[in-house]
């Protein structure tokens, strides 16, 4: 069955079209990623159309949609989630969500040892999660200052991965920083949701992992929305 997977929890927006077998194994048919900056909203829909075209598939061939739920900067994250939810809704197929940090961790499961995944949370903080030798998430996802994350993880992890590791290399000095595959990949999102898709599990509410309350400050003025 064809499954569309995507993630927009980081500046890298990523889309994959995969075929899920009855035993939940995944074969990637087409994949596309863009360095979106904060242009997720402009790049995501064309990327979806591109992967469908590359694989010669029609939207109506899709049987499920998978989506990274973050944590990640809110605006870009929401683009991916509302896109996945709307595609699934429009087609009447189930949607499944995963923690985006789990998708990032999955790409690094081949190597042994405990793993710390860190991505940029802005405001001098990182989103992070910690995984044991078996790849199970044992702590997080959370949002914290890099120094605090490093202090808590010391002695528990063998490697640090993700864009936050290189961005805050001072905080993670002394850790083995793995710079390979630093971004979430949609095909990893697909692998994580594949068992649910293969089992035809019921659709899920795609709820973003915000981990922060909204800034409850009203704008001082809305006049910027008038035409210039």
């Amino acid at each position, binding site marked *: 069955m064809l499954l569309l997977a995507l993630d927009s929890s980081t500046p890298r927006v990523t889309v994959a079209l995969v075929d899920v077998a009855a035993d939940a194994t995944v074969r990637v048919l087409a994949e596309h990623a863009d360095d979106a900056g904060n242009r997720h909203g402009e790049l995501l829909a064309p990327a979806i159309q591109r992967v469908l075209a590359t694989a010669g598939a029609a939207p109506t061939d899709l049987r499920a949609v998978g989506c990274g739920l973050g944590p990640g900067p809110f605006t870009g994250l929401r683009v991916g*989630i509302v896109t996945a939810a709307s595609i699934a809704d429009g087609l009447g197929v189930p949607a499944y969500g995963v923690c985006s940090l789990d998708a990032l961790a999955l790409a690094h499961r081949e190597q042994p040892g405990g793993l710390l995944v860190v991505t940029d949370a802005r405001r001098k903080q990182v989103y992070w999660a910690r995984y044991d030798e078996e790849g199970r998430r044992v702590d997080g996802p959370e949002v914290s200052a890099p120094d605090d994350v490093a202090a808590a993880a010391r002695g528990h992890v063998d490697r640090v991965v993700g864009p936050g590791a290189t961005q805050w290399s001072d905080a993670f000095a002394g850790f083995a920083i793995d710079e390979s595959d630093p971004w979430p990949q949609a095909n990893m999102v697909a692998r994580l949701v594949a068992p649910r898709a293969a089992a035809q599990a019921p659709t899920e509410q795609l709820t973003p992992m915000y981990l922060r309350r909204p800034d409850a400050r*009203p*704008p001082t003025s809305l006049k910027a929305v008038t035409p210039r």
Partner: protein
Amino acid sequence: MTGPRGLGPLVLGIETSCDETGVGVVRGDELLADALASSVDEHARFGGVVPEVASRAHLEAMQPTVHRALADAGVTWSDVDAIAVTAGPGLAGALLVGVAAAKAYAVALGKPLYGVNHLAAHVAVDRLANGDLPEPCVALLVSGGHSSLLVVPDVTGTVEPLGQTVDDAAGEAFDKVARVLGLPFPGGPHIDRAARDGDAAAIDFPRGVVRDAPYSFTFSGLKTAVARWVEARTRAGEQVPVDDVAASFQEAVVDVLTKRAVAACRDRGIDHLVIGGGVAANSRLRALAAQRCEAAGIVLRTPPPRLCTDNGAMVAALGALMVERDVAPSPLDLPADPALALA
């Protein structure tokens, strides 16, 4: 392109530019559904719309509101000819939720996408209430986010801004004055109600004029004058006549709005005025606009209050007109533009 039985295109419209998640369905100029989810209560304690709160609410409300609109309209996806969405102006993060949802539905269903201007949609909604939109017309759009005077030769293409507020939007002034008077947010309906029992001539509040911009508005001086007046009474230990202040403030606002709008019609030789936006629900604005238009020989077009505030039907109404006029659909990389200018 026409819908079933040649009755005009069936368009689903999505509006998320501020705090209302609106999804409307129209067939040509016929309103089929107008579903709305509002996060206004979540913003009330902040006295204004909190963008992140609005964006989160849009995401949660999107699918339920779409479903309600389709059910209310008694149609299914296969009946829908096109998806229209507000591309701007508005709050960036809020707009983005609607635009991304509209694109996703367009891709999934293989339907054309129409990004529309929120202000033009406020004008186009008139066709749902009053039939074929007169073009050219002058449009006065007043809300918490915008106060604009437009000349509209073609609502799907050419809309010329004549003037706008140089500081507060009219609805914003209502909110701020309501706060000064101890009335709840949003201020418009509360001031309208209080003003009915007040004397509009009790206090002579200033009518702001913008130099060299005869069609522009300024409300910050008025707002300050009201605050000073109320403060002075309070400091003197006097009771504040809330009804009179509300009526006098409201009169100052609608006097300026209607005077400029009628002047724009007269100067341009245009004999139709359309009013829209949340403040167009104000009863005094409607009454005074009707009176002045009648005196000037202008036909006033006022959609019912429900269609004046932000909603999805107005987006669908404009989208349907774009389909009818063979306007090219938007590309899938259509940006959400918080400061989207009129064409």
